[in-house]
């Protein structure tokens, strides 16, 4: 057994090697435990009292720059930004809330507010409005509305985005259509036919050019599902306690979505065509010039300019069904909110006020080509002119005056999952698993059950 001593030495060598690595790394990383401030089980994250924790899953670079300016202008203020990938922050927010170590301020997806604040996740901030004399009328109505639940205010709108019909003018010309005429979104039958007319398949039956696919998935667009429902007069909730997923208007919408998909070759052909495109982040078959129409957000304007500068396209609001004059819109976006149990409210308020001030909001609009929630900033000519497509930017920003918002309900996420993304309820219809009526009825059962459980759990 002569090998033993040797092997043992090797075992130690690994350990020593690893320890050496640790020592080395400890030098590289001053944030090693020894140097870390002891949190000592206090209810605050490890940070000096004057430092506030600010968590965001959007706009990392812009926030860093803006917070640097803020701290320069306010020598006493210290802000630590922690950024996340979109969609990854909520588990952490919930966990830290449970542990009483919630951050001082977060940027939250607005449609989640009712579900989160309604369950006690957010601090009520009516005080803030008083203290800083904030006027709700200064903000776009839809964005302000989403911060309220049961008559109390929980968030201040930060940024927003609209949804529009985009069309490829070159593909319209090639099909003998007037490229400068927006598609007839008020006429659903015409849209169905136009979608089919603009679809071209190859000898193998594969779609080479897609006309229009009215649902949110893999580059077919974003947020359209809500727009179609609203334009048909569809509502998702009757009141705070009653879901309305079996609304006949929603059944009609599902049927129309299915009809359009059938018209372009069916769901398999549509899924085949869109396979491989990312669902967000710049790239899309529309930009690549193979999708003739889509409903998507105004953020595409700056992305087209960056990734597809030669794209020849139009953009217009979606019409109310049957009306050539009335339009509808969708306001998405984020807000600023304070988790329950966060300390140092004054510092959070101060930062909140800075983030929603005219100068900051204008800078956000110009730098990030995102729509400020502060009306005055959104309508500033300087911002409009900063867009690569000023006329379209104007349409987008002005649309916030009439834009609608997703249902304010503690079951907003359930509705979103069924109706839009991943769109379970819609898939039932598209994949022929259920009729639109059946799908709507089943969605109703699910959402109503979740809603009843919510109201039971709050003891009302």
């Amino acid at each position: 057994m002569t090998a033993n001593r040797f092997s043992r030495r090797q075992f130690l060598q690994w350990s020593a090697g690893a320890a050496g690595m640790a020592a080395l790394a400890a030098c590289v990383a001053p944030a090693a435990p020894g140097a870390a401030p002891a949190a000592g089980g206090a209810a605050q994250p490890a940070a000096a009292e004057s430092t506030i924790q600010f968590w965001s899953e959007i706009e990392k670079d812009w926030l860093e720059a803006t917070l640097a300016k803020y701290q320069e202008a306010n020598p006493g203020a210290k802000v630590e930004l922690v950024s996340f990938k979109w969609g990854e922050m909520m588990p952490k927010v919930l966990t830290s809330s449970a542990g009483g170590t919630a951050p001082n301020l977060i940027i939250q997806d607005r449609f989640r507010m009712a579900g989160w604040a309604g369950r006690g996740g957010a601090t009520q901030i009516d005080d803030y409005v008083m203290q800083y004399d904030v006027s709700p009328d200064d903000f776009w109505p839809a964005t302000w509305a989403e911060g309220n639940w049961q008559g109390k205010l929980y968030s201040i709108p930060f940024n927003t985005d609209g949804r529009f019909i985009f069309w490829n003018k070159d593909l319209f010309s090639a099909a003998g259509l007037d490229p400068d005429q927006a598609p007839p979104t008020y006429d659903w039958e015409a849209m169905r036919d136009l979608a089919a007319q603009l679809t071209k398949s190859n000898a193998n039956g594969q779609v080479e050019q897609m006309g229009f696919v009215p649902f949110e998935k893999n580059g077919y667009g974003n947020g359209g599902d809500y727009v179609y429902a609203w334009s048909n007069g569809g509502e998702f909730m009757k009141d705070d306690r009653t879901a309305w997923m079996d609304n006949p208007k929603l059944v009609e919408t599902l049927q129309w979505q299915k009809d359009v998909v059938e018209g372009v070759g069916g769901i398999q052909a549509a899924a085949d065509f869109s396979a491989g495109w990312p669902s967000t982040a710049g790239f899309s078959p529309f930009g690549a010039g193979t999708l003739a129409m889509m409903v998507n957000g105004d953020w595409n304007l700056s992305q087209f300019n960056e990734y597809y500068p030669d794209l020849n396209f139009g953009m217009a609001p979606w019409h109310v069904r049957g009306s050539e004059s009335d339009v509808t819109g969708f306001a998405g976006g984020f807000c600023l909110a304070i988790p329950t149990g966060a300390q140092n409210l004054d510092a959070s308020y101060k930062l909140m006020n800075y983030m929603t001030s005219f100068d900051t909001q204008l800078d956000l609009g110009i730098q990030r080509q995102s729509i400020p929630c502060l009306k005055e900033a959104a309508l500033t000519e300087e911002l409009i002119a900063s867009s690569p497509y000023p006329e379209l930017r104007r349409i987008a920003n002005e649309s916030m005056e009439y834009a609608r918002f997703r249902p304010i309900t503690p079951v907003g996420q359930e509705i979103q999952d069924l109706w839009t993304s991943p769109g379970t309820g819609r898939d039932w219809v598209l994949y022929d698993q259920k009729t639109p009526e059946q799908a709507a009825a089943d969605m109703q059962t699910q959402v109503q059950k979740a809603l009843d459980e919510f109201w039971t759990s709050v003891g009302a």
Partner: protein
Amino acid sequence: MATEPLVTHPQNTSTVRVRSSSRLWAKRLETLIIYIIVTALALAFIFPLYWMVITSVKPNAELFIWPPTLWPRTFEFNHYGDALREVPIIRYLGNSFYLTALNVIGALLSCSLVAYAFARYQAPGSRVLFVVLLATMMLPHHVTMIPLFLVFRQLGWVNTFQPLWVPAFFGNAFLIFLLRQFFKSIPDELFDAARIDGASEFAQYWRIMLPLSKPALATVAIFQFQWTWNDFLYPLIYINSQDKKTIALGLQDFYKSQTTVEWQQLMAASVIMVLPVALLFFFLQRYFIEGITLTGLKG
């Protein structure tokens, strides 16, 4: 690669010359076929890394085109510099190295001890404890995450590195089970002999079991390294400052916004992140090749 000299085994020499040479040729043909299969498969498996590297040097215009380019038309190497400039990758790598080293030490020490207990001793309750050990792997961590967070918060460890390495010194069920399987394959006679020679229980563990389990211990080191290196959820939950992020968590910094992702920088950082583990594996796997001298001992 297929033209490499072939190894002949001395015991293959046969008295009949013709048979011997035809057998030799069959052997060579077999080797050749194996080479072809293994090389083809290896190329397929190395493809993800290749793809990651070429994506990190593609220009925007080439990122999403169908069919994708397998060899970029234009090379843009600036994404590496940009990634290093925009995100403190070196700092994140340092944090990851620090945590990984502690985790590997902890896992090697604790898991081998505990596995030795389960492999070598029968005791009242040992079977039940083994079931409990296995059970800890079976409850999805999404539901224990918050209670566990409360434990660490009680200890005052939120936003420190402790929750990310201290548990490693108390064993990991996957690795204990793995080592136990290996340890159980080592013949009892070796230990009986040592026991008669007066070796203590600890000496048997240290002088017999560990040296004979080098491949398994190397496996443990590699797995623990890889898990800590790639772990995302726990750093996400426990780390509250940018400068304490690990590299796996830091990759998120390239998701600038819901609709903006720095794809090439993300890929460049991923390449930087994969290299240390790949190198570690390359050097540690000598322990798989070298093998152990079990045969001689057994005879």
